[in-house]
């Protein structure tokens, strides 16, 4: 096939996926230059057995025409009677015919904005695509577009006045349709209380958290109590049946009612022993250790208890670095210094020296781009999803073995200062994302790094970060060290620093503060 430039399938999709995309073997999209008027495509009309979607011309936009051909679909492009789609007669008319050139990614280029007339102008050639990153084109063909239903054909419950269909077909379709409609329109869970609501009623909903009179206001116990009260109130409001149908029995820490203490301890142990940051997958181990538990139960416990408790502690001990996706987070030892450094998930509390944190910070961003959660290169494509970008969302992988050196080297021409400025306090070595969802004061500003932000592609992105000098990196308040930020923010927020013994009780469930009600009582 004659192509204007070497083309590979990988290349076509390079722009769109972090990992190499799997191009369907059955169809390929071949970019071909479009030189012809949209209507004058007759000579290039696809001879398809199916529809005629084979030939896609972007004459209006002047882009490369794509001819998806799928051997299975028997779609061929017929050019001048030729059954082959390779002999583009225009192949020779290359750059000379360029109407205008627009750099792919300089949208502000004045040539890019076509005068209104040329929008309908038929001959537009967009050559720059050949030179720049390939623009990903919309695939066309029977494998891509939807088949639309006719409007007005289906009937409502009332009599129908459609004139276009034969009555017999109409009748059967009508019956089917009504049956389908009634059967598959969802199951009522909560009916409307008042069918007719005055327009101005109920502008405000919910009461928000009110002030409580607890002595240990804001403590774990206080929070649990109020959650329990809220639940009971909601149950009364909804009615028990609806309450159950809405799934409340599987929400929140009530899930622990079905777990004994040993199981909970084992769960925690399995997770800590198999940190994702070391490339381990604790889910497999969980399945092994809990043969009697189905996956749903494990997942339910994970989100409703395990992570929730972590978040509770994060709220109190490291509020500027909350991350509900970090299951390796551990609160620091009380004896640690006040830098709120988080330890590695599978180590005892270790206080990192500021310099080390600094180092980690510098490398963190690269960690993101590489194997954010995994140290092992071969693990998978999940690194794509590293919360990159916004400073406080950098992922800090476990900086044990493989850590930073190689990354740092490869990214030596980046701006290390950026990384650790925008990382907030998240210096811990435990693969924990220094995310900050709230307006936690002092959170370092995020960087506008396209790559790191857009987790779905990193490899090429990363290269572009380094080479792309077009972006300014917003560093925000310079000079504020991340640990200061964290410290300040923590100090500002309400922090309920429980004594260590209480924390142990919290974690391991001993004593009166135990949340797990093995006797099945309550939630607090």
């Amino acid at each position, binding site marked *: 096939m004659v192509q204007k430039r070497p083309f590979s399938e990988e290349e076509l999709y390079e722009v769109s996926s972090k990992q190499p995309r799997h191009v369907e073997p*059955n169809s390929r999209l071949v970019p071909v230059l479009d030189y012809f008027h949209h209507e004058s495509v007759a000579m290039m009309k696809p001879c398809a057995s199916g529809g005629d979607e084979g030939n896609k011309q972007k004459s209006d936009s002047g882009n490369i025409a794509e001819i998806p051909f799928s051997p299975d679909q028997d779609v061929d492009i017929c050019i001048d009677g030729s059954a082959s789609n390779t002999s583009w007669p225009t192949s020779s008319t290359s750059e000379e015919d360029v109407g205008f050139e627009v750099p792919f990614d300089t949208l502000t280029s004045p040539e890019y904005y076509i005068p209104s007339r040329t929008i309908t102008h038929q001959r537009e050639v967009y050559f720059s695509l050949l030179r720049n990153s390939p623009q990903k084109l919309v695939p066309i063909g029977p494998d891509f577009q939807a088949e639309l239903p006719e409007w007005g054909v289906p009937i409502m419950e009332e009599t129908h006045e459609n004139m276009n269909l034969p009555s017999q077909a109409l009748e059967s379709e009508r019956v089917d349709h009504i049956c389908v409609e009634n059967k598959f329109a*969802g199951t009522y869970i909560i009916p409307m209380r008042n069918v007719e609501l005055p327009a101005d009623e109920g502008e405000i909903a919910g009461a928000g958290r009110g002030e409580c009179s607890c002595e240990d206001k804001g403590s774990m116990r206080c929070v649990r109590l109020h959650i329990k009260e809220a639940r009971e109130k909601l149950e009364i409001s909804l009615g028990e049946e609806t309450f159950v149908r809405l799934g409340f029995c599987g929400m929140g820490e009530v899930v622990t009612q079905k777990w004994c203490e040993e199981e909970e301890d084992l769960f925690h142990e399995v997770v800590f022993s198999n940190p994702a940051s070391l490339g381990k997958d604790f889910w497999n181990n969980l399945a092994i250790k809990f043969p009697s538990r189905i996956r749903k139960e494990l997942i339910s416990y994970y989100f409703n208890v395990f992570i929730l408790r972590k978040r509770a502690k994060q709220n109190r001990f490291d509020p500027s670095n909350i991350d509900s996706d970090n299951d390796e987070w551990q609160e620091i030892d009380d004896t640690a210094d006040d830098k709120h450094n988080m330890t590695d998930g599978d180590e005892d509390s270790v206080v990192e020296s500021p310099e080390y944190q600094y180092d980690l910070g510098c490398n963190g961003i690269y960690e993101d781009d590489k194997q954010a959660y995994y140290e092992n290169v071969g693990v998978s494509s999940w690194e794509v999803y590293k*919360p990159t970008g916004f400073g406080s969302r950098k992922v800090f992988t476990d900086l044990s073995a493989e850590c930073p050196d190689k990354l740092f080297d490869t990214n030596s021409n980046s701006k290390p200062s950026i990384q650790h400025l925008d990382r907030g306090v998240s210096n811990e070595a435990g693969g924990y994302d220094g995310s900050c969802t709230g307006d936690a004061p002092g959170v370092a500003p995020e960087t506008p790094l396209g790559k790191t932000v857009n987790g*779905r592609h990193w490899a090429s992105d990363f290269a572009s970060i380094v080479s792309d000098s077009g972006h300014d990196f917003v560093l925000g308040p310079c000079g504020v060290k991340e640990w200061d930020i964290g410290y300040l923010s923590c100090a500002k927020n309400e922090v309920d620093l429980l004594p260590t013994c209480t924390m142990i009780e919290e974690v391991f469930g001993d004593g009166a503060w135990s949340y797990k009600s093995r006797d099945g009582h309550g939630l607090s």
Partner: protein
Amino acid sequence: MRSKDKISYFYDGDVGSVYFGPNHPMKPHRLCMTHHLVLAYGLHSKMEVYRPHKAYPVELAQFHSADYVEFLNRITPDTQHLFPSEMARYNLGEDCPVFDNLFEFCQIYAGGTIDAARRLNNQLCDIAINWAGGLHHAKKCAASGFCYINDLVLGILELLKYHPRVLYIDIDVHHGDGVEEAFYFTDRVMTVSFHKYGDKFFPGTGDMKDTGERDGRFYSINVPLKDGIDDGSFNRLFKTIISKVVETYLPGAIVLQCGADSLAGDRLGCFNLSIDGHAECVRFVKKFNLPLLVTGGGGYTKENVARCWALETGVLLDTELPNEIPDNDYIKYFGPDYSLKLPGGHIENLNSKSYIGTIKMQVMENLRCLQHAPGVQMQEVPPDFYIPDFDEDEQNPDERVDQHTQDKHIQRDDEYYEGDHDNDNHTDDA
């Protein structure tokens, strides 16, 4: 004043146990959190709550290829290694992993959107919400971008049975490529997507130049944006464009995908929108008083997703929510501030005023080429005429409303009906 909209809300608790895999950013548990927050705020008392039916394979095959649906139904994590070529063909295994209960998950979220469309079609509600839906990357024969079944396409196909034209609006940070692609050739669906574009951001489509093909030419609108767009810029652009679209296209129904990854601080996103800014789009679309199907979409910082969609549920209910998050099982997720609203982000806004102005101009330019409602003879818009911009800042008092625009208003009465529960909207083709 118009009476309050009747809202149908779809939710199935089974989504909470869906788990894509370790470190995968898509966490359906966010739907549990959203739902819980909605209930904690007492919003359930103002709307109808439904558990959707699980969509049947035949329903999914209304758009997707039968063999793809069948494969999704059959494949499990334990057997996926036996089908390497199919896995590759359907783009499964990386971004779109095979996990336990995958097909059931698809059935739930697709069933929600289909049910929502059906209720709208039957005028049983004015607005239908399915936060579990909005998976806009799924293709006819393949998964993509964490999406397996394109519930939006299925919902739109359902709406198309009752409406000649459906407008699709997508405010996810990623381009709504699956939906655009599905309807690229038709003028019965207009797709409008606001998204980050460039820097090889996923999925790579969504260039402003992509406007549709054949009958669908100019019926795809793409608004490519750069990192860091803030509330002000985004909302102005959104309102200007959507106003013009609705006025020009006269849709019978609107589908709004509210991907929350366009919020500041999203794990994968790169915009600066606050929750208020995001919700402003929802508020604006609701004002058109058209049958409205609202879905979720992206959103990879769970608690922000829950905040956003809970707030937007309130917006759709014309209900203001207190900023203090009420006690609920998941309240710890919302610490340490426990507030509903989040401010916008602080990353640099790379969308300069001139850039946005240029985009706006170009989109408006494309809209002018838009053929009017199908069935009406197309009239060329003389290039010298300029339809007034809705943006007050840029309004040119010297421009006049041309005859073309006036004609549209005339037709509007014929073709456009208020959603006031009347049933006479299916007479002969108007």
